[in-house]
């Protein structure tokens, strides 16, 4: 389907670009208010311990404000409020006498400068009752003899016992798996393990809490959801929501690390309430690593297929290492299954998922919410099956993938939609030509020090977590759009722009719907008290859900503009006879009647409505999407393995994506570039390893020991090709779907399938560091030393 658009699909500069290149844009850490105190957090030096006493006398003597668990409501909470209450497991305390990971906050101080606060924090003495050996391996943690990390937690409003350190579980069965495997000609079974990746968003988390006259709280923080932050603070401190205002502040990247309210927010609130002064806390990088990282995934997957390449059964065992506290891993058990089941038509399925506590930094979502991990495993297995059956891996994918007209599980068992747009065949076939798939050769033919290989990975992500039926996930948004008195518009939404240009996309959608230039639309500053509820800018829903909400608001505003125009013109009876468009001569938006000389500028209409007391032309929309469609991605990657050093270099990348209508091609490309490079880090370097004795992150959380790719590690721009499928999603705004996560998800699979094609070795544990490659080459007898 091809539609001509005025603004959509065109490359347009982002509205915040100037503020960003001049360094004028203020992020949370840049904010200062008079009289503000700086807070510092006192953290547990042990991974698993009982505290007898916290002695704060020295710190108090220094003039610091100090809070300990005794000063704070001891209510268990879950920092992430995306699932409904009944399936939200609460086990976290703002400050605790029983730290369960090294670095867990046990007290906090505030003083007039960072230096004084740090000194005061160092003066807080913690006396321990008992120090336990940390449990770091989930397979160890589930043994009945292992000590319990948590004994009682809350599920919704009920207390539940935790047994064998299992935080949550989810099972699923479909068809007859045993018979499916009996029918199979080929069965492949593998175990996979991922690293514990850290988001490494450039801006460390920060918060500023201001007590307004009259006691109201204003909170500025690095968050993907101002509304859920407000709700959480309201619940924790028993303050009515109307007395808390959370302001949207530009954020320096996030990648899922602030879907939850970061731990420093309630701590800063507690300090500010006690000090009766504004309090700011900004993590150091090393503290930020102690605040959030990804889950560790342990998979065991078995797949059966017939000689003709039809799958007969799949079994998926998923053991999630969630760390010391739950940041909603229960829905991740559901999405892991959802990603798996929506990849290929397995026919018969058995799924066993458990989320297990360990004494590590609590795991949270990281771009893809399990999809990069699941798709890496599945796409590895599909390649292996193709090889066993002697079928081209691309043909096998085309034969079995879940596509148009079929049920897509998106974000787990309660978020299901029918696929209405599907660019998979186009992307697989076009990409195959560009990468020169047929010339890739077999690993056994490749010799010498430097060996090249080509691999493919196919996957997807949802666009949001909406759907026709209200499930376990909350997903709706809202916005306000109003015409100002001079014909410009204010667009008001709680959605956040993490950097991907989400709000700019909304502006273009509004402009397209109204037929006016995007320059007329202002992205208003936003806070919880001035915006309708939005759940969170996550799940690649910003453009698809938020954009459609904005389009609907624009549709209403357009209707009202036309009605006002009719009132002014007097002669036209039917609003449908009127058009809105940009007049190049007048250099402004006009309402006109085709074939006549009737023409009114938008400014005139706005001004007249104001001067004649007709009231504001505006719209308020609260919107839930009725679908959560997949955006498909296909990566073809060529790599070069240095068999002497074990280092891998990207040579060529073909990133194909089906986003429906691309709102801004520059931003689409930017997501794919960023997604690929993040996948490169996931494949080869990224992991926060833990000291098995102490439970401390090795390298003490310094990023000098956590390597993410640099410009030197990426392919040259000429060798990075982006293809955008020509599809149209009927449920999305002007045919658009989401992208942020789809942009990354199957890239790891493509990269490691390329490594296999180069050296004939498969790796099942991430990251695939040079030493693992060297070791594997040695084992294979390919290295002489």
């Amino acid at each position: 389907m091809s539609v001509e658009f005025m603004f959509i699909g065109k490359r347009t500069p982002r509205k915040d670009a100037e503020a960003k290149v001049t360094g004028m844009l203020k992020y949370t850490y840049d904010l200062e208010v008079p009289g503000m105190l700086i807070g510092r957090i006192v953290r547990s030096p042990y991974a698993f311990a009982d505290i007898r006493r916290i002695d704060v006398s020295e710190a108090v003597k220094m003039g610091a404000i100090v809070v300990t668990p005794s000063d704070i409501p001891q209510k268990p909470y879950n920092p992430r409020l995306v699932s409904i209450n009944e399936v939200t497991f609460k086990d976290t305390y703002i400050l605790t006498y029983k730290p369960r990971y090294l670095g867990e906050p046990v007290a906090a101080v505030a003083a007039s400068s960072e230096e004084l606060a740090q000194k005061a924090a160092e003066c807080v003495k913690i006396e321990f009752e008992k120090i336990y050996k940390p449990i770091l391996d989930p397979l160890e943690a589930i043994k009945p003899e292992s000590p319990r990390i948590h004994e009682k937690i809350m599920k919704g409003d009920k207390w539940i016992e935790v047994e064998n350190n299992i935080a949550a579980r989810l099972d699923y069965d479909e068809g007859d798996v045993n018979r499916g495997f009996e029918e199979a000609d080929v069965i492949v079974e593998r175990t996979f393990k991922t690293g514990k990746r850290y988001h490494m968003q450039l801006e460390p988390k920060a918060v500023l809490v201001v007590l307004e006259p009259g006691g109201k709280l204003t909170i500025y923080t690095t968050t993907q959801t101002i509304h859920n932050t407000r709700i959480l603070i309201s619940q924790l401190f028993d303050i009515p929501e109307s007395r808390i205002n959370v302001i949207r502040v530009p954020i320096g990247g996030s990648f899922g690390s602030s879907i939850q309210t970061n731990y420093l927010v309630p701590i800063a609130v507690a300090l500010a309430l006690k000090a009766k002064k504004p309090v700011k806390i900004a993590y150091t990088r090393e503290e930020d690593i102690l605040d959030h990282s990804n889950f560790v995934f342990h998979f065991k997957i078995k797949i059966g297929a017939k000689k003709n390449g039809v799958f007969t059964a799949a079994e998926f065992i998923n053991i999630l290492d969630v760390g010391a506290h739950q940041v909603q891993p229960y829905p991740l058990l559901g999405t892991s299954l959802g990603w798996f089941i929506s990849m290929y038509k397995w026919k018969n399925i058995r799924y066993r998922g458990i989320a297990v506590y360990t004494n590590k930094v609590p795991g949270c979502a990281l771009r893809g919410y399990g999809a990069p991990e699941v798709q890496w495993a599945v796409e590895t297995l599909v390649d292996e099956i193709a090889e066993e059956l002697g079928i081209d891996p691309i043909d096998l994918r085309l034969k079995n993938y879940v596509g148009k007209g079929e049920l897509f599980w998106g974000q787990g068992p309660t978020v299901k939609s029918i696929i209405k747009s599907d660019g998979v065949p186009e992307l697989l076939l076009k990409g195959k030509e560009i990468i020169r798939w047929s010339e890739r050769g077999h690993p056994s033919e490749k010799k010498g020090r430097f060996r090249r290989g080509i691999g493919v990975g196919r996957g997807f992500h949802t666009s949001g977590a909406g759907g026709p039926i209200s499930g376990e996930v909350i997903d709706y948004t809202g916005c306000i759009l109003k015409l100002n008195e001079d014909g410009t518009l204010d667009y008001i939404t709680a959605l956040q722009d993490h950097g991907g240009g989400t709000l700019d996309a909304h502006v273009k959608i509004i402009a397209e719907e109204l037929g006016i230039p995007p320059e007329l639309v202002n992205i208003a500053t936003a806070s919880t008290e001035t915006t309708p509820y939005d759940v969170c800018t996550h799940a690649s829903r910003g453009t698809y859900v938020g954009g459609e909400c904005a389009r609907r608001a624009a549709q209403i505003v357009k209707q009202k503009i036309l009605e006002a125009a009719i009132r002014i013109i007097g002669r036209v009876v039917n609003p449908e006879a009127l058009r809105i468009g940009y007049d190049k001569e007048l250099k402004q938006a006009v309402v006109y009647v085709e074939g006549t000389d009737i023409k009114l500028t938008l400014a005139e209409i706005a001004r007249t409505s104001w001067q004649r007391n007709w009231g504001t032309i505006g719209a308020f929309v609260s919107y839930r999407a009725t679908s959560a469609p997949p955006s498909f991605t296909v990566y073809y990657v060529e790599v070069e393995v240095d068999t002497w050093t074990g280092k891998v270099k990207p040579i060529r990348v073909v990133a194909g994506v089906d986003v429906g209508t691309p709102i801004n091609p520059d931003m689409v490309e930017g997501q794919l570039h960023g997604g690929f490079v993040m996948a490169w880090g996931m494949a080869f370097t990224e992991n926060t390893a833990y000291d098995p004795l102490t439970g401390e992150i090795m390298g003490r959380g310094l990023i000098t020991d956590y390597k993410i790719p640099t410009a030197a590690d990426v392919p040259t721009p000429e060798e990075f090709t982006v293809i955008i499928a020509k599809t149209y999603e009927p449920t999305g705004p002007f045919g658009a779907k989401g992208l942020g996560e789809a942009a990354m998800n199957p890239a790891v699979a493509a990269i490691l399938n390329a490594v296999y094609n180069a050296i004939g070795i498969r790796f099942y544990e991430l990251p695939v560091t040079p030493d693992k490659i060297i070791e594997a080459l040695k084992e294979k007898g390919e290295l002489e030393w």
Partner: protein
Amino acid sequence: MKVKFILNGKPVELDVDPRETLIDTLRLRLKVKSVKRGCERGECGSCTVLINGNPVVSCILLTIQINGAEITTVEGLVGDILLEKLAKNFIDNGAIQCGFCTPGILLTAYAGIKQGKIKKSEDVKEYVNNLCRCTGYVKIIEAIAKTANEVWGHER
């Protein structure tokens, strides 16, 4: 300790603690907020400033070490032709996402181009080692290489 330097063309005279880092002097005392604190280990490059025209990370430098030097941040390059070219190419090319790394990368690229160390995209990959987590660097490399090409002419 007394320290004197030029910040964005203006003389500055301060009495600082000898342990104070340049990033703290700039951000906390002089309110230069384009200099971002990303790691305080000299790893990420978000706090890059130009010292006598060379890109240096200000988080692992003591303020007393820069006595007599000339410090430039993006605030001081408003109206500078090369910086404006760079900024324009960043904007037109979609090389900006969250923007947290942008001022530091602009300064590194500015110095690299000005000193003739960046003339083509391979040079960017070698010279610009600031971290960015959003863009995958591709558009940044393109924008910088394009600017270098405008300044130095096409070279491959």
